[in-house]
């Protein structure tokens, strides 16, 4: 019995030792729980630890607690699973998640913080305008700030193009012609990674280039049944269909898998691929040929090359508040957002990860300045931003993306024939309209 009493006493002391320092630090410091997600590899925890240390040195009394929460999806699910008052203060989440969190009153608008900045307008204007498209609602509320953004881009085997004397394609007709010229029995002319569960991202570039963006700034409207949408889908599907079946016969049926596509490219098994700019560092390190980058070729929308359709992608910084946080906590959260989106950090983060630095001025300072001088390919995605569209976002975004991804996969994989594609899009549109009905 005495032994048990001693054991219990020891347990109480140990628990007190664990709790007291935490309580003390809460008294002294504002602690910012920072959830971060990433789709690229590297010593990212180390980098965030450095950023946090740097920020804490500049902001005494604030402690940053970086928490790696996995993929974007896992991060979103973690926050939702934390219930009505999540522990998170600042999170890197998909730019497309904005209305999911607005709809359930998790995040707060940032306008008041920006208004209070001394150089708020200059700060705002230093971000690439294309990235703000996924941060601002129709009423003008700013809900997030760009941190690690990306965009799809076309990679091509420059040596092959030189050998065959082929010009780099700038529109869809030239794209298919080049792909057919470079397609052999053991090499695809073109691979577009739409075989996974996320074809919507690549598809947007075609829908935009055909003149029918899925969304156009209004989160209560999604268009998936326009005639141009169908044309875009038919074009994308034909890339993988054989010539005998009415296709272009230049890529794998159903598209390529996301992770396999860069591997096939560096192995010489694909002459051209569409992929995220985030893959550039890996491809440059792995390929034994000259890697060329170009804008995604334009479609029929617009004239004289204005039919570029690339969407943006990647993650933004959000501030979470259930209304219980103090002004000091919210100010510290905002300061951390401003720090991470500063030109210096963006330049460093972009060079370390391959994401597109969000600040225009970050490209004029080191280390990004030297990197783009050595590898001009990094600047191609940046320049494409002049023509970029917002990434798909709307209310009920998760459900609507699931609908669109499923139906795209149905058609592209051949589970549903192209003849039935129009009715598939109509049915999907009816489901989407049903979900958005309460917002209209």
């Amino acid at each position, binding site marked *: 019995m005495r032994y048990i009493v001693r054991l219990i006493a020891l347990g109480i002391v140990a628990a007190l030792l664990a709790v007291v320092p935490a309580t003390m630090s809460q008294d002294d410091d504002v602690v910012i729980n920072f959830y971060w997600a990433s789709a690229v590899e590297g010593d990212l925890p180390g980098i965030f630890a450095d950023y946090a240390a740097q920020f804490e040195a500049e902001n005494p009394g604030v402690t940053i607690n970086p928490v790696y929460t996995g993929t974007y*999806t896992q991060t*979103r*699910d973690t926050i*939702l699973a934390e219930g*009505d*008052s999540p522990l998170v203060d600042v999170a890197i989440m998909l730019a497309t998640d904005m209305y*999911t969190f607005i*709809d*359930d*009153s*998790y995040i*707060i608008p940032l306008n008041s913080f920006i208004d209070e900045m001394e150089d708020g307008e200059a700060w705002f204007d230093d971000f690439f305008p294309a990235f703000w498209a996924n941060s601002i609602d129709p009423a003008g509320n700013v809900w997030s700030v760009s941190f690690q953004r990306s965009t799809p881009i076309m990679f091509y085997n420059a040596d092959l193009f030189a050998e065959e004397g082929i010009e780099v394609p700038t529109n869809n007709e030239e794209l298919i012609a080049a792909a057919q010229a470079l397609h052999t029995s*053991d090499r*695809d002319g073109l*691979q577009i990674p739409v*075989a*996974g*569960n996320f074809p919507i991202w690549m598809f947007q570039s075609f829908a935009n280039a055909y003149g029918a963006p899925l969304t156009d700034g209004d989160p209560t409207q999604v268009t998936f049944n326009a005639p141009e949408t169908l044309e875009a889908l038919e074009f994308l599907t034909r890339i993988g269909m054989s010539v005998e079946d009415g296709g272009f016969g230049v890529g*794998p*049926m*159903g*598209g*390529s*898998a996301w*992770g*396999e596509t860069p*591997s*096939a490219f560096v*192995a010489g*098994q*694909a002459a051209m691929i569409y992929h995220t700019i985030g893959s550039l560092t890996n491809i440059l390190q792995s390929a034994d040929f000259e890697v060329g980058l170009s804008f995604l070729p334009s479609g029929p929308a617009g004239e004289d090359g204005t039919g570029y359709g690339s969407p943006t992608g990647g993650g933004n910084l959000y501030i979470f*508040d*259930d*209304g*219980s946080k103090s002004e000091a906590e919210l100010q510290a959260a905002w300061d951390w957002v401003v720090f991470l989106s500063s030109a210096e950090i963006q330049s460093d983060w972009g060079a370390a990860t391959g994401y597109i630095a969000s600040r225009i001025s970050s490209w004029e300072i080191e280390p990004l300045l030297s990197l783009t001088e050595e590898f001009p390919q990094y600047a191609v995605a940046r320049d494409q931003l002049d023509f970029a569209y917002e990434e798909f976002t709307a209310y*009920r*975004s*998760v*459900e609507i993306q*699931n*609908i669109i991804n*499923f139906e795209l*996969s*149905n058609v*592209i*994989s*051949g*589970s*549903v024939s192209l003849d039935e594609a129009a009715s598939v899009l109509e*049915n999907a549109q*009816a*489901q*989407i309209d*049903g*979900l958005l009905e309460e917002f209209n």
Partner: protein
Amino acid sequence: MDTSEIASDAKPETVVVPMSKPLLQRLVPYLLIAPTLILVFTFTIWPVTQTIQASMHEPGRATRDDAGRRVPGEPTFVGVDNYTALFDSTHFLGRRFPRVLTNTIFFTTATVVVGLPLALGFALLINRPMRGLGLWRFGFFYTVLLPLIGAANIWAFMFANTTGVINTVLGAFGISGQDWLGNPQLVIFSLVLVNIWKQTGFFMIFYLAALQNTPRDIYEAAELDGGGYFTTLYYLTLPLLRRTSLFLVIVSSTYAFQTVEQLEALNRGQPADRGNLLLYFIFQNLGSSSNMGYVNAMTVILIGLLLVFTVSNFIVFEGRSEDE
């Protein structure tokens, strides 16, 4: 002899009424089962009850009050609407759910029907003296030692369309490769293959242990009676392995219903859900508060399926056992 006479002649015994046991002694059995009860209640009964309740509600949407405080939404009771929606082809989940359910039942059945006989075959094969026995046993068992996600990545490398091992080997023989994970007609078979490859060694170990525990004298008697190998296998070995088989059918089907990791590494349920399974589909639909009613309904269906599968196996196997 009439025993009733003896009973009536016998001296009535003094009935000793036991004194009531001390309180602690009476409480001991309850105290002993209390930890288990608490665990079962906390981690099984309570969550299942909550899930069933949530499956009959539509989640409420949170709002903010005038002071900017977040006010959680109130769920609305919708009865079985979330369940019927899952089978309504005009509903955004109803268009997909039946296919995923069918896939799951096929995947589970194929794993059991093909995997268990294979495991038994391997066990019979290595349950005999032979050269390099340890190596053979390790060869059949090593797939179990691999982490599931690692094994799935190995198969992703094997199945890869343009750079994969299988298509490269086929190509060397002039045979055109297949899109093992991208072809809607092939993908579910590819997933079954990976699951059987991963699990068979595990099931084999149970059969091997059961075989080595069967009494040898029965087999010697059968041999004396002139029973051949297959006769002995059918009339002796298989009935003796019935309990092991029941256990393995339940375990393998439960594992099959719980498959998630290999889908995450191989195909993420694609293309067009042709390679999707129920638990992974539930996971895919988690990311929205509005979806939680449907997600809970799907979870209840999954639990119900597992219960039906397990109970029916008990009835079939145990019923046959009592018949004999």
